[in-house]
């Protein structure tokens, strides 16, 4: 690393000052989240009495009250959210990788035109599609089931991931395909034995972001689900907010904290891949 950088020369004093500023900035960024987590462990009167992070008297009762706050245990909502997110991951990985393989490696008529159409669909806001999709799912009697939230992923509607995978497959050496062809592999076998294993990094990126975004996709969930026992975690949180109001912030914070656990766990486990995925592909996050 050269001594001259974007910001200037870095002496030891300057370095220390930068560190202090960066730490202060990071604390400001994380403070609200930490305050929520600590609030989950504080008794009600203490949450608003102090801005401090360490509870004076530590309690778990918020979690107990919150868990059963809607009559149905939050376990049900977590199960619903997990089911939807897991199915969305499987659907996206399968259907998007298939389409991507065709676009990147196979030749067929109107390939350029189809590819262009695929790119356009990435830009399309969901709002233009949601009313007719609602009518369609309503006619299929799919409203208030997990089907509208999962089946579309098996039909590669998240075209962004197709694009991401096409870019990735293009970077794989074609000689491997050719060698496999000489050995008698057809396109299906090449996909299964060569391309799919080699594109694992792209598949993992897809899986991570599909999981996180599906978990948090409040708009789709609120449109398609209205029965309490079908609620996902975000819907349950919102219902809990409405039903208990300002009175039970402790349980509210406890459940909000729990709802972030899967996403934060994903983040901590795949941190490197998530940050790389964003800086190299521009995935919104």
């Amino acid at each position: 690393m050269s001594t001259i950088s974007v910001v200037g020369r870095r002496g030891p004093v300057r370095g220390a000052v930068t560190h202090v500023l960066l730490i202060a900035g990071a604390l400001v960024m994380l403070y609200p989240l930490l305050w929520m987590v600590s609030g989950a462990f504080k008794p009600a009167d203490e949450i608003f009495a102090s801005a401090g992070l360490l509870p004076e008297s530590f309690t778990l009762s918020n979690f107990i009250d919150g868990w059963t706050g809607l009559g149905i245990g939050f376990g049900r909502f977590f199960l619903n959210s997990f089911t939807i997110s897991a199915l969305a991951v499987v659907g996206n990985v399968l259907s998007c990788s298939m389409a991507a393989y065709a676009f990147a490696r196979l030749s067929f008529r109107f390939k350029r035109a189809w590819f262009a159409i695929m790119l356009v669909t990435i830009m399309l806001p969901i709002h233009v599609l949601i009313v007719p999709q609602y009518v369609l799912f309503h006619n299929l009697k799919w409203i208030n089931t997990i089907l509208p939230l999962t089946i579309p992923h098996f039909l590669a509607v998240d075209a962004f991931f197709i694009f991401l995978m096409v870019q990735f497959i293009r970077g794989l050496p074609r000689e491997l395909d050719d060698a496999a062809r000489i050995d008698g592999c057809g396109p299906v076998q090449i996909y299964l034995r060569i391309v799919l294993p080699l594109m694992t990094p792209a598949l993992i990126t897809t899986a991570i972001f599909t999981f996180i975004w599906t978990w948090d996709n409040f708009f789709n969930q609120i449109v398609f689900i209205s029965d309490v026992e079908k609620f996902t975690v975000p819907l349950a949180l919102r219902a809990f907010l409405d039903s208990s109001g300002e009175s039970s912030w402790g349980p509210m914070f406890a459940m909000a904290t729990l709802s972030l656990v899967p996403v934060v766990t994903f983040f901590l486990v795949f941190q490197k891949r998530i940050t790389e995925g964003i800086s190299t592909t521009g995935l919104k996050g």
Partner: protein
Amino acid sequence: MHDTLTPVRPEAERRASSRQKRRRTDSRVAYLFLLPWFIGLVVLTAGPILASLYLSFTDFDLLTAPRWLGFDNYQAFVDDPHFHSAIKVTSMYVILSVPLAVVFALLVAVALVGKRRGSGVYRASYYLPSLLGGSVAVTILWREIFGADGLVNQVLEKVGIIGPSWVSSPDFALYTLILLHVWQFGSPMLIFLAGLKQIPQDLYESAAVDGASAFQRFVRITVPMLTPLIFFNLVLQMINSFKAFTPAFIISGGSGGPVDSTLFYTLYLYQEGFANFHMGYASAMAWALLIVISLFTAGMFITSRYWVFYGDEEGAK
């Protein structure tokens, strides 16, 4: 494999026909691989987009057949006060939160670039709000932080200021949502970080030799070199801001209040379509949104010619 089936043909002919056959199988297999996407395209994208265009010209409540209205829905925008609020609120949100988030992202990225002890931890801490900020949980937290006796007012009270009840005050509610967006500058920041690493260090070295100050180096080298990414982030953030929904919904309890001050466009669209079952009107709103986003994006691409510099152009000059 199929070569063994036609051993008598001359070599060249055999190879040509093999290639042709391969192309044909390829094509057939390709359509097989694309089948799920095709079905999705027809049933969930192309069909619905045409249907919503049609519905936007009708009065439709889901239960009875759509009634043709012509341009009435679009005409109704003119006299709909909520529509006007939604446009105003959303414009304010986009105009303020997008540039602020991008500027923060750029400044923090510049501060973070380079190898430094703990840079991974810094990057993670600044990015985490980006990942969580769109969730219901964090929006609920935000509502509490900016509540009448929330965290912000507690802190203000210590220095002797009685703060307003931010989220339930029409003058401040929108700004708390803008702040929530700006707080999530982490993902454009990561994109800038990747870009900063691509800038050749010798540019900075020769500028330093010429006596350029750190500020001058930032303005003359860093910013111009990053214009493609600044542009990319602005477009991406803008599209996302137009579509923002969860924060407004949660903060206002679904109402867009107080006094329509957080009635985001998508929230009003949701209310009309799925609470009031004015699905024709909601479809017209969706089309207006699509047109506006397309126009803005196209506009940004056109102006980008004057301020975005790509490396290869500079060589040509």
